[in-house]
């Protein structure tokens, strides 16, 4: 392949046979699916299907980068993994920052596909063309810091490592993979996929260059990147909020709009939010770090130097963690949150899902739906740091009640019965993130339609969070500005969620960080087009229209992946708490979320039929996804617009 930017190769690893081979990345694949998330969707569509058990040797773990990874491009140090999720049984993906992604490119690969299962614990050590299977029985049982240190001690400090901790080894359904110590491939249980393969870690180091098609033209993009981050209108505010305080700068502001999940999302406003805000956390900051090739530099290390949590030092906590383990549990001690963040990082546990499973336990205990004898001595009272810490441990090690909770909030609630399911806040089995659809209606649409489940990262819109009128006018037109920017109306939200989903499909494939595209809205399709063309030499990448179609294609492919799994529109629902319980307190008091109008508008814009929940065949054909339509037609009858009447038969 002569496309620049790309490494041009995919590394396939078979853990059962302990064999590996590198295959070329085809040009038409790169042009059609861009890279990263798009490439992963294309690969997984062909590698697994509805009969693949997520924890079986047949499930594939795809690790993917994009053409901009390793190049000097805005926030382009991120990479992603994708697989069939052990937690939800459907599309799973997770992204992480740090500096691991670029090393994959420097080693000469755009993606790595891992299949099979090792007979004993192993780590894969990739050093340019060399791939070593390193016996890891000695570090099986180690936390992520120790396993990372071990591999770097043995093979070299310039290796970057992604590893599971005890949670992934124990197949906890929401276990994470930790990268460069503190960066999390957090959600959808990717840690359990590695655990099921007896794969402890993947380490990589590379010495090859990333080539540029037109260096003279590419310089312009680099200079624009620099200008935007040092002189542009978003430069100073980005540095004074995200840069200085990190993502926790959001806590008190989100509370001010009444959207801060409090007490298992019972309400969105907490009087004590300032105790866990970004400026409170600043007191425990010890250093600041950056992802590879990023100028926002929002990562921080925190440390507690005295008291009962002395010695707790880790990267983060980020906004989602501060909320999930803070206001969500009515825990107002930032030191406890720092400690729990460290535990989750060491064990390799998704802080978002863990926090929502714990708040579920707190609430059902309060409501008398679970007894003390079930809990083995843990007293899950609101605000109890000890209970939260204990639950993190028993979940990781599958002890007592932890064994059930490790299956995720849906299975746990189902086993308990007695109405516990009402308090299990999820969509499609993925626990909800740190937003509330009652205070920001578009969140309801995002959670319902997202391929991972209740996920904020595939299409969370920020134009309506606080209200950015000029961005809204630019992207959607002056006539829509009022409603688009009003977070408390459902109007136009289906449209903006679909637009964001297309944008993020491209952003997740380039790969760029959303801090930079979501907020601050420094970059949009046009910039990405101007970046990709001189980098890769692909003429079509330079056309916004083409990129938008690319985004649509990737978004549709993932939705079709889920359709093949048997996911239907019936699963695109929100927990009753958000549609039926009016927000009880705070600035967004009284509101509920009405999903239907947003869902209808989203389907209409997606080119899918709302009644059946299926894509029109013409939509898939128009995106070059005929092969997908053909596969789906073996299982479902897809509607066609030209029949006039939508008559579909669902599979039994």
């Amino acid at each position, binding site marked *: 392949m002569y496309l620049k930017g790309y490494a041009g190769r995919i590394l396939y690893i078979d853990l059962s046979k302990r064999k590996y081979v590198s295959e070329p990345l085809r040009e038409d694949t790169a042009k059609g699916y861009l890279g990263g998330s798009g490439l992963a969707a294309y690969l997984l569509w062909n590698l697994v299907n509805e009969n693949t058990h997520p924890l079986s040797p047949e499930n594939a773990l795809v690790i993917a980068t994009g053409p901009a990874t*390793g*190049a*000097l491009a805005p926030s382009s140090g991120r990479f992603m993994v994708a697989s069939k999720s052990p937690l939800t049984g459907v599309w799973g993906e997770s992204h992480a920052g*740090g*500096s691991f992604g670029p090393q994959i490119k*420097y080693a000469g690969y755009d993606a790595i596909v891992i299949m099979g299962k090792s007979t004993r614990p192993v780590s894969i050590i990739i050093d340019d063309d060399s791939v070593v299977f390193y016996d890891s029985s000695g570090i099986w049982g180690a936390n992520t*810091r120790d396993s*990372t*240190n071990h591999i770097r001690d043995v093979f070299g400090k310039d290796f*970057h490592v992604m590893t599971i901790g005890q949670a992934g080894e124990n197949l906890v359904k929401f276990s994470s993979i930790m990268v*460069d*110590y503190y960066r999390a491939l957090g959600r959808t249980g990717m840690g359990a996929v590695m655990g099921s393969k007896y794969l402890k870690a993947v380490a990589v180091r590379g*010495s*090859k*260059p*990333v*080539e*540029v098609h037109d*260096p003279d033209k590419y310089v312009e993009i*680099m200079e624009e990147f*620099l200008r935007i*981050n*040092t002189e542009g209108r978003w430069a100073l505010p980005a540095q004074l909020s995200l840069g200085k305080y990190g993502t926790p700068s959001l806590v008190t502001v989100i509370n001010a709009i009444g959207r801060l999940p409090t007490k298992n999302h019972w309400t969105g406003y907490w009087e004590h939010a300032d105790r866990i805000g970004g400026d409170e956390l600043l007191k425990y900051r*010890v*250093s*600041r*770090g*950056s*992802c*590879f*090739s*990023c*100028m926002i*530099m929002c*990562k*921080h*290390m925190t440390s507690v130097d005295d008291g009962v949590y002395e010695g707790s030092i880790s*990267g983060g906590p980020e906004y989602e963690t501060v909320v999930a383990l803070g206001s969500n549990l009515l825990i107002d001690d930032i030191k406890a949150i720092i400690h729990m963040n460290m535990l989750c990082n060491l064990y390799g546990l998704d802080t978002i899902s863990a926090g929502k499973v714990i708040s579920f336990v707190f609430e059902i205990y309060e409501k008398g739906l679970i007894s003390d004898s079930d809990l083995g001595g843990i007293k899950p009272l609101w605000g109890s740091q000890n209970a939260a810490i204990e639950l993190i441990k028993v979940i990781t090690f599958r002890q007592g009640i932890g064994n059930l909770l490790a299956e995720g909030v849906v299975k746990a609630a189902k086993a308990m019965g007695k109405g516990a399911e009402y308090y299990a806040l999820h969509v499609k089995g993925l626990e909800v993130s740190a937003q509330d659809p009652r205070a920001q209606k578009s969140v309801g649409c995002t959670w319902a339609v997202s391929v991972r489940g209740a996920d904020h990262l595939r299409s969370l819109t920020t134009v309506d969070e606080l209200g950015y009128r000029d961005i809204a006018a630019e992207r959607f037109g002056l006539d829509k500005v009022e409603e688009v920017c009003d977070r408390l109306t459902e109007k136009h939200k289906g449209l903006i969620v679909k637009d964001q989903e297309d944008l993020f499909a491209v952003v997740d494939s380039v790969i760029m960080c959303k801090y930079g595209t979501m907020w601050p809205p420094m970059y949009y399709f046009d910039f990405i087009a101007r970046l990709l063309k001189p980098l890769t030499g692909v003429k079509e990448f330079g056309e916004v229209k083409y990129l938008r179609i690319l985004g649509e294609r990737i978004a549709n492919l993932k939705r079709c992946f889920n359709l093949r799994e048997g996911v239907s529109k019936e699963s695109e629902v929100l927990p009753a708490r958000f549609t039926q319980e009016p927000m009880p307190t705070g600035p967004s008091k009284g509101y509920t979320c009405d999903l239907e109008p947003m869902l209808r508008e989203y389907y209409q814009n997606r080119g899918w039929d709302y009644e059946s929940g299926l894509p029109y065949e013409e939509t898939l054909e128009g995106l070059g996804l005929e092969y997908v339509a053909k596969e789906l037609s073996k299982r479902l009858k897809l509607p066609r617009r030209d029949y006039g009447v939508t008559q579909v038969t669902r599979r039994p």
Partner: protein
Amino acid sequence: MGIQSKHLVLDLEKCTGCRICELACSFYKHGRFNPKMSAIRVHYNYELYRAEGFNACTQCGYCVSYCPTGAIGVVNGVVIINYSVCSGCLACVKACPIGALISVNGRPFKCDLCLGSPQCVKYCARGALHVS
């Protein structure tokens, strides 16, 4: 020679390990992206999130006398390699006391302050780099 005239200085407190300096250098000097081809290399500790050192030519001129073809000279306080005279023996690379002279595609390579306005300094968004 021996006089530390102009050379790159990295403020370790300010550095966040983004490596954009290395990418900028590699791109401007070699037209591609590869930190291993950069004349400046940052030693960043990912476990503790702090920069612990950096490596770049201090323009000390120690290598000059080790070159058998006389390809290395000093111009305005900056040590420059004349590639049309360089034989590729890499004796200078072996001689450099701090390992700042590296081999890239068989040729010796080092920081020459971009002969005026260093790109790494320009691209450091935190202003952590400057020329002493």
